């Protein structure tokens, strides 16, 4: 009960914050008579979103497909890899430093290479998102899999459980809260990485729209694309948060 009322309170605060932002934004634009290339008015952006409806829809659809595909692939690979390394501790000792080293460089640094290897199409974006999401989820899953209570592991061992059974019935569920929170923050991350990669080279998508609009000095369109991206990110984040609350009910 308590957590429910908290959630609705959170929503109210969120809405209040958004309203405040809109008022300040619109107020600043009018008060200082800002030119559109510095900051267009919100109304102007919304109107342009309606005008550019079909372009934006196509671009959003493309970016979302890339982000979600990469997200699913990356999460699955991250979890699978963490499970394998947990099952084979020697392998874990070898691989973990390499994984941390790769992860310490921002993924975007690999974008030119990935574009070179996978081309300008959707594949390169999916690969980039998979990398970004995969490492985050992998590292959290690895920590989570290590968190199961020693005594619970012993209990399962006393029942004659093998390591695979212990992973499946104990370690993986015990790791779920950490995996889920990594997957929650990865939602927005996957959108960002998809868009940034599109800016570096693509045939479509929100990042491509933003890049093209910038070349044409159409900043209202840039903002329209940013709004579309924010909206979709928010929905993605909300949906995953909702699933998280359903799946991890015991917290």
């Amino acid at each position, binding site marked *: 009960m308590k957590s429910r009322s908290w959630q609705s309170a959170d929503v109210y605060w969120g809405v209040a914050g958004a309203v405040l932002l809109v008022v300040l934004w619109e107020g600043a634009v009018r008060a200082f008579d800002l030119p559109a290339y510095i900051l267009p008015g919100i109304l102007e952006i919304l109107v342009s979103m309606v005008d550019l409806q079909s372009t934006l829809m196509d671009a959003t659809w493309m970016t979302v497909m890339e982000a979600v595909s990469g997200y699913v692939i990356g999460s699955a690979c991250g979890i699978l890899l963490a499970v394998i390394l947990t099952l084979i501790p020697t392998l874990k000792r070898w691989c973990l430093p390499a994984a941390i080293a790769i992860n310490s460089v921002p993924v975007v640094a690999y974008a030119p290479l990935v574009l070179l290897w996978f081309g300008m199409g959707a594949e390169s974006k999916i690969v980039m998102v998979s990398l970004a999401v995969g490492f985050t989820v992998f590292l959290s899953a690895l920590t989570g899999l290590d968190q199961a209570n020693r005594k619970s592991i012993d209990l399962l061992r006393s029942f004659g459980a093998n390591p695979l059974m212990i992973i499946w019935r104990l370690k993986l569920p015990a790791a779920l809260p950490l995996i889920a929170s990594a997957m929650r923050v990865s939602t927005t991350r996957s959108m960002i990485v998809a868009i940034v990669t599109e800016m570096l080279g693509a045939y479509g998508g929100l990042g491509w729209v933003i890049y093209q609009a910038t070349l044409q000095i159409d900043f209202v369109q840039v903002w329209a694309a940013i709004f579309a991206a924010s909206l979709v990110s928010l929905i993605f984040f909300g949906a995953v948060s909702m699933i998280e609350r359903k799946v991890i*009910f*015991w917290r």
Partner: protein
Amino acid sequence: MSLPLKNVPTADHQNTSPQVAPASTLLDLGGVSKTFGNVQALSGLNARIGTGEFVTVVGPSGCGKSTLFNIVAGLEEPDDGAGIQFRGQSCKARDLLGNVSFMPQQDLLLPWRTVIDNAILAIEMEGMPKAEARALALKMLPEFGLAGFEKQYPNQLSGGMRQRVALMRTFLFKRDLMLLDEPFGALDALTRTMMQRWLLDVWQKHNRTILFITHDVDEAIFLGDRVLVVTARPGKIKLELPVNLPRPRGAELVTSPEFISLKRTLLEAIEEESMKSFQATTGH
């Protein structure tokens, strides 16, 4: 150290009075020691558990009772030089993994599993189909005072109920030897008495051998064929007290002179050890 040959239930459990029959030894521990770093938990502990016997274990806190159970459950190897025989065969502690049904001191219920699914954890891992295991457990729920609670999650249960779920999980994992580490510790006095009588019932019906740790001297005598008193750390057996009281045992037993006299002997032995343990830990 001699194994008293006394009322040990044998395979045919039609007994209503004490039977005098030589028990075959199920578990034989010789010179079991265990050292953790610079803490010696057990030192040369010897014990023999007969098939079908109900043996209770008492001793001061921290004397190594749970450590003993961990060894018998196969979770820890004792120090070199220990001899373990199970069903007459010499073995390592780890050979006992999966052959002993073990109920640890904490209930260790999995928060994401319902009562029924926690109860079937062990048999599910043995390979019993989930539906079959659930049906089996569902039938046992009333016996454990959990009827109607099958769909609840552990965080919705009282401490006593959680312990009964853990007990049920242990019972469903059918093995000759059961290790129960303070199974009734979190129960109120009334439920506790009921569970004790219930446990005796089940034990006689199901032909199990039970090793049972408790801090309650009354409980140790009421349940046991024998009471083992463990010394202050490092633990070994200080006293092995046969309980020659008739079965089935009723509530009136605890006020009988025989019971009282056993209790006096036990309390004396335990107090001596508790004092030692207390002095060792407080430095007086």
